[in-house]
């Protein structure tokens, strides 16, 4: 394992300290907890958004704490859900009368820990609702499995639900908007290399030099299949086929595109991917309303990317366009 760290057991703590020192105007840390909240708590009673999950996905989620997105972010150990007491502290800290919406990615650990935190908050009389993001089309959804994973589409849920909360909408309304984003966003990714959890010390899987893993998750969970690496055009075409098979988008309808890097892929390649995505959408007559390219939901040092397509309507467009000012996302 070759990493720029001091102690595998201190990576989350030291990273959070570094984030606060880099962005003191945006975030502060709740003392004694792995929780980042806005440096200045909004003075009006708005719905507060809290997200979180395992670390290793930076800038998710702490990087999205700020105006127009999250109010608090809870960092678990690398790729491990945070514990209920940490989530509960975040909820207590950000609640200012409008209620709290938890944005949870669909992983068993995250669901269980956030669920326990909701129960603790409800006992204290705090109004808490949850939305579970499950945008990954690589995983088949059925009542017999855990269901689809939450991946990069979560960032779009933060952006749009965060905008709705900032506009003063009620907890029920913000939750409905978050659910609408989740219902209209689809993602799929691929990788060229595995990644190594610092405390584990070795990669989560092995890939030969000429191989790629298609449809994998953001924790290095194996994907749908392994194949010989091909051109950007062919890879994107396969991912887009899966995505567009899963959601009806007609010619003339509008979408937002998120080309997300997994941490170890240069922007040059992400832009090449985006060029292919745009070409496919253009061919189908689907209008691209907004494009976001960069590293938003990473998987440590993994090389690879994911594509997320969000089908838009007037309400989502307006919220997508409104101001966001956070360390990891500005608009």
């Amino acid at each position: 394992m070759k990493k720029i760290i001091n102690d595998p057991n201190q990576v989350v703590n030291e990273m959070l300290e570094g984030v606060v020192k880099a962005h003191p105007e945006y975030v502060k840390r709740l003392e004694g907890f792995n929780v980042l909240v806005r440096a200045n708590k909004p003075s009006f009673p708005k719905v507060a958004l809290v997200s979180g999950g395992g670390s290793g996905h930076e800038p998710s989620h702490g990087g999205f704490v700020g105006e127009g997105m999250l109010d608090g972010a809870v960092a678990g150990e690398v790729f491990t859900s945070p514990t209920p007491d940490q989530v509960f502290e975040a909820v207590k800290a950000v609640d200012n009368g409008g209620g709290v919406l938890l944005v949870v990615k669909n992983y068993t650990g995250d669901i269980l820990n956030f669920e326990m935190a909701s129960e603790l908050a409800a006992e204290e009389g705090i109004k808490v609702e949850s939305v579970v993001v499950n945008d990954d089309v690589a995983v088949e959804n059925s009542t017999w499995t855990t269901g689809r994973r939450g991946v990069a589409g979560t960032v779009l849920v933060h952006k749009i639900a965060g905008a709705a909360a900032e506009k003063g909408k009620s907890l029920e309304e913000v939750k409905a908007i978050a659910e609408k984003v989740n219902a209209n966003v689809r993602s799929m990714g691929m990788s060229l290399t595995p990644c190594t959890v610092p405390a584990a010390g070795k990669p989560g899987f092995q890939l030969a030099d000429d191989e790629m893993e298609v449809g994998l998750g953001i924790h290095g969970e194996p994907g749908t299949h392994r194949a010989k690496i091909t051109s950007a055009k062919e890879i994107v075409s396969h991912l887009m086929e899966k995505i567009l098979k899963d959601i009806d988008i007609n010619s003339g309808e509008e979408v937002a595109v998120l080309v997300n890097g997994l941490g170890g892929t240069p922007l040059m390649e992400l832009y090449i991917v985006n060029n292919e995505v745009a070409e496919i959408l253009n061919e189908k007559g689907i209008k691209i309303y907004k494009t976001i390219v960069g590293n938003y939901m990473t998987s440590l040092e993994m090389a690879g990317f994911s594509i997320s397509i969000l089908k838009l309507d007037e309400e989502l467009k307006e919220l997508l366009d409104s101001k966001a000012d956070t360390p990891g996302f500005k608009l």
Partner: protein
Amino acid sequence: MITQAMLIEILENICKTIEENMSYLTELDIAIGDGDHGINMNKGFTAVLNKLPSLQDKDCGVILKTTAMTLISTVGGASGPLYGTAFLKASSVVNGKMEINNTDLLEMFNSAIQGIVSRGHANKGDKTMLDALYPAYDALKEAIDNNNTLKEALQAATEAALGGVEYTKTIKAIRGRASYLGERSIGHQDPGATSSYLMLNAAYNTINKRG
């Protein structure tokens, strides 16, 4: 009969067993999950081990509840809430008691299983810790119903749990991160079932050593 002193000894032994098997559990998890089971479990049980000295004069309910709350706040992942809930449910059976009789033990075990089922929304055959715990409970109940000694009953439960671990190699994961693998999860043993077996085995070894 398990006295509170014996209960503390059992918990100490569980903590040590988890530490010894940390890499093993992580290896199993790397194969079908995200490779953190051993690390997280060891983190939680190390915290439990550090709390045990302060529990020397406490009743069994307090000992188990402290264990539960410690696991909930330190383990993370899915295992934290699941094992935490299991210990919490078991603790409520022996509130205020300084000793655990065989009836209590069965009731604790049953409550723990029910806690895991309702928290994790999982069933028998989903390739989870329940596939070690259900057969262990059945074996424990049969042994106790037939008036076997505690040692014999725990031995039977441990053997049944190991059988359950072997069984998880033959089935497809339905819950948790391993479920994303579908058919590819067959052939691998479940890390959660394995840690459940290891805990039971540590309990049996503690009683066995005392004779």
